[in-house]
């Protein structure tokens, strides 16, 4: 909804608005540890550990090597993740099971970081529908993932759209507040969508837990240039950036006619 107003705003200012690259004198925050840990029911558990850099640096983020990374489930199965490439830790024997709670422990630079996440039950992604809608001054093609939300509030979803092998950076994340227990065909709308005839669009649907939903809503707010941006609240304790998510994952693809 907010994006409609943003678009309106753009229409109003189109005649006069002008953009330019400027220099802003920014502070350099000390480098912080960034942990991104994922357990899914369809692929290998992965934990990436990097560090933040200053704004003016290039977009290469130093890997944190030599960390001790373990993931334990609520049945006390313990998995040690080993470093395959610098900063990238994984264990191919850990595939998540919906309903289980996973605990992450990372020790890096003498500091211990911990987090837990519960993998929700999988909701089946039935199909991908297509539609065209007018948006601003053009028609855009939209993909609508269709699924049936289970009865009872508290289901959270995240969708990752890949157009011809390029991941759409836009974050699609929502809950079941408006259609609890119903069939959802909520579209993946991106105002500057480039989807055209002949493209292959892949959609990954994830069922995520509430902390991760909040994390990604905050991240989406940052993408939309929030009024007062703030770092998304991490579910990892110990003082780092990033998140640890145990989620289901299911993929489907569609060819744009």
């Amino acid at each position: 909804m907010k994006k409609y107003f943003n678009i309106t705003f753009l229409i109003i200012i189109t005649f006069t608005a002008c953009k330019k690259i400027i220099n802003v004198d920014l502070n350099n925050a000390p480098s912080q540890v960034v942990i991104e840990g994922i357990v899914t029911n369809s692929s290998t558990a992965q934990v990436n550990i990097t560090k933040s850099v200053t704004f003016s640096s290039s977009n290469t983020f130093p890997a944190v090597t030599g960390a001790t990374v373990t993931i334990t489930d609520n049945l006390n199965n313990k998995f040690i993740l080993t470093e395959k490439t610098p900063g990238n830790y994984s264990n191919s024997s850990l595939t998540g099971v919906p309903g289980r709670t996973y605990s992450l422990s990372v020790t890096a630079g003498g500091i211990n970081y911990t987090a837990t996440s519960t993998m929700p039950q999988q909701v089946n992604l039935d199909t991908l529908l297509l539609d065209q809608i007018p948006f601003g001054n053009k028609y855009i093609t939209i993909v609508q993932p269709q699924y049936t939300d289970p009865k009872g509030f508290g289901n959270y979803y995240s969708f990752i759209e890949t157009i011809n092998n390029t991941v759409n950076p836009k974050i699609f994340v929502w809950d079941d507040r408006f259609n609890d227990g119903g069939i959802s065909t909520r579209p993946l709308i991106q105002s500057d969508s480039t989807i055209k005839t002949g493209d292959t669009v892949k959609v990954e649907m994830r069922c995520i837990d509430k902390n991760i939903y909040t994390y990604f809503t905050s991240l989406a707010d940052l993408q939309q240039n929030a009024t007062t941006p703030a770092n998304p609240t991490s579910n990892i304790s110990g003082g780092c950036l990033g998140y640890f998510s145990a989620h289901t994952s299911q993929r489907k693809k569609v060819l744009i006619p």
Partner: protein
Amino acid sequence: MAYQFKKFASIRSCIFFISFLINFNLSAQNKFTLSGSVKDKKSGESLIGASIRLEETKINAVTNGYGFYSITIPQGNYTVSINYAGYRTDSKKINLDNNIQLVIELEPISTLLDEVVVSTKRKNENIAKPLMGVEKLNMKDLNNLPVLLGEKDVLKSIQLLPGIKSAGDGNSGFYVRGGGADQNLILLDEAPVYNASHLLGFFSTFNSDAIKDVTLYKGGMPAQYGGRLSSVVDIKMKDGNNKDYDVSGGLGLISSRINIEGPIVKDNGSFIISARRSYADMFLKLSHDSIMRNNTLYFYDLNAKANYKLGKKDRLFLSGYFGRDVLGFGNSFGTDWGNLTGTLRWNHIVNNKIFSNTSLIYSDYSYKIQIKSGTDNFKITSQIQDINLKQDFDFYINNNNKIKFGANIIHHTVAPGTITADASSNIQSSEVQKRYSYESAVYVSHELTVNNNLNIVYGLRMSNLSAVGPGNFYQYDQSGNAIDTIHYNKGQTVASYWNLEPRFSASYQLNEISSIKFSYNRNIQNLHLLTNSTTSTPTDLWLPSTNNIKPEIADQVSLGYYKNFKEGQFEFSVETYYKWIQNQIDYRNGADLQANDNVESELLYGSGRAYGIEFYLKKKFGKFNGWVGYTLSRTEKRFAEINNGNYFPAKQDQTHNISLVGIYKLNERWTLSGTWVYNTGNAVTFPSGKYHVNGQTVFLYTERNGYRMPAYHRLDLAATWESPRNKNRKYQSSWTYGLYNAYGRENAYIIQFKDDPNDPTKTVAEQTSLFRFVPSITWNFKF
């Protein structure tokens, strides 16, 4: 209950105290009362704030909001002189040997070139008045000031006064002495207007053709006003010409206007209808693009008012406002939003010393969003509705004592969001619980002339907010998780807040032309705006205080020095203030404010403080007039959960703020004007680093509002040409040419940080600026 009784008891003792202070003059001398009203001779409009002076004495009275005045003086012969800015001074000889009723009609001065005859005493009236932090907007000046796209706008013009800051480039939203945009009580004929802007903030909802008087209180609010922390903007609509029919209007780049007024019964009743519609959508229709053609974007508003005299002592007023913005993209998305207000008032002159006004006020703000996507077809609606009953009395006891007292009760209904879906939709119809509350207040205010030098106004307002059922109310833990749900039945009290709001101001006259003034006031706000957007969006949500949301409290002290010089041609003032604010609201990260039954779980509570000093120099008369305003100020907030619990600058914290306004009457035909504004950039949060997550670059933030936008400055120019006046013909017309941002300053509207589109290994800052060199032309007519 015992607590409530104690509060009532304290009110009672206060009334005793007041009656003790009032000096009932029981001397043998016979006293009589001169009362009546002051009006415009041509239109019969009552004049607000006109001065009535008895030349033989120092006694001076001012007309109230309905043009009524009352003076009680010893028997004798007097010369009464009546002054009002923009009108020829009138004087009458009276022999006061019984109570006299005198209706005075003043003749408007048609051009500024006419010799403005204003007595020196009248010129220095601002010095003696105990009110401080009050600004009156001259509606005549408004017509000459340059504005964006030529759309004259009261809310934009008040931003040129010291202590008042604009919410953004071309925006009608404003901040008063550090308070938020939601802390301004904007009243249109006593009805609060919840969303005072059109087109996402670029234009205000007020059609200046229909407006008679705008008074802004930024501190020292009299006790009759309450409900918001920072300011009161009291806008009064014209009553309509009760002598003759008038049609006026205008064509501008954004909208066209028409205004019709005339008598219902000559001298006894009149009406006014004023309408405006924008036509930005007409440009869309011209587009070659068929999709653009199917988009809609416009606003309209309608002001209407009628009044009728039921006799010498009674007068009825019925006024209303209806405005709507409409926006749509083809048939997939449509929305409209707007305000509806209605006021029914009954003025009654109880006797020549007591004036009564009873008002029944309705106010409503609503929006509707219609979305159609595939098989989903649903609409979201939201509404806030007030019904308000208000009784006010003005009691003119004697020349040294005036009392205002009254009471009101408002019933608020807030429907935060209702979703209505077609049967075919996958979206389900649902409703976020409606919230009900009663907001009531009683007040008394005493204006006391202690001696020739000292005037004071003090008063007390006692306000209450009671949140009532039906509904489920929640209790939350520290991190915002619901830990308990309590159901309340219809009419059951969920939470009740009593507050005492003392108001005090005093002026001490140092000599004829200078004075110092002091004021203290406490204000309470029980309606809270939830918004996490930069611009005013139609989906702004107002919530009353509940078991979780406490009333916002502001205490303000201010001290000022006032001096007039050059025969009252120049007015100088300096005011300094300090404000403590409690129970301010902010949001948790990732807060979801829309259609959320648990919205209160997303809120954080903190405090704030604001202080500053305002300088103001105004040239009031002559071919050239205008003013210079400078404000040096600071506004800070503190929340335990933000910035490690340290104070951080509020967004609207602008250290320096300067405005220059000049209006020059070149000749009979041409008036030139210019305004220049400068302010320190708003406080913003910029990144202090970056990291990689979710396959993308994410910026790292350290402190809240730790950076500044670049300084903002702008020059606007306008020239107005008026058709030569012809005594035999009523027809008049004028052309106004304007240039907004005349030297094309690229003021930063937003600064965005992103990956460099030309080099993905880098990140850059990109500035967007909005309006540069925006010309305008407006044609106005009257016949």
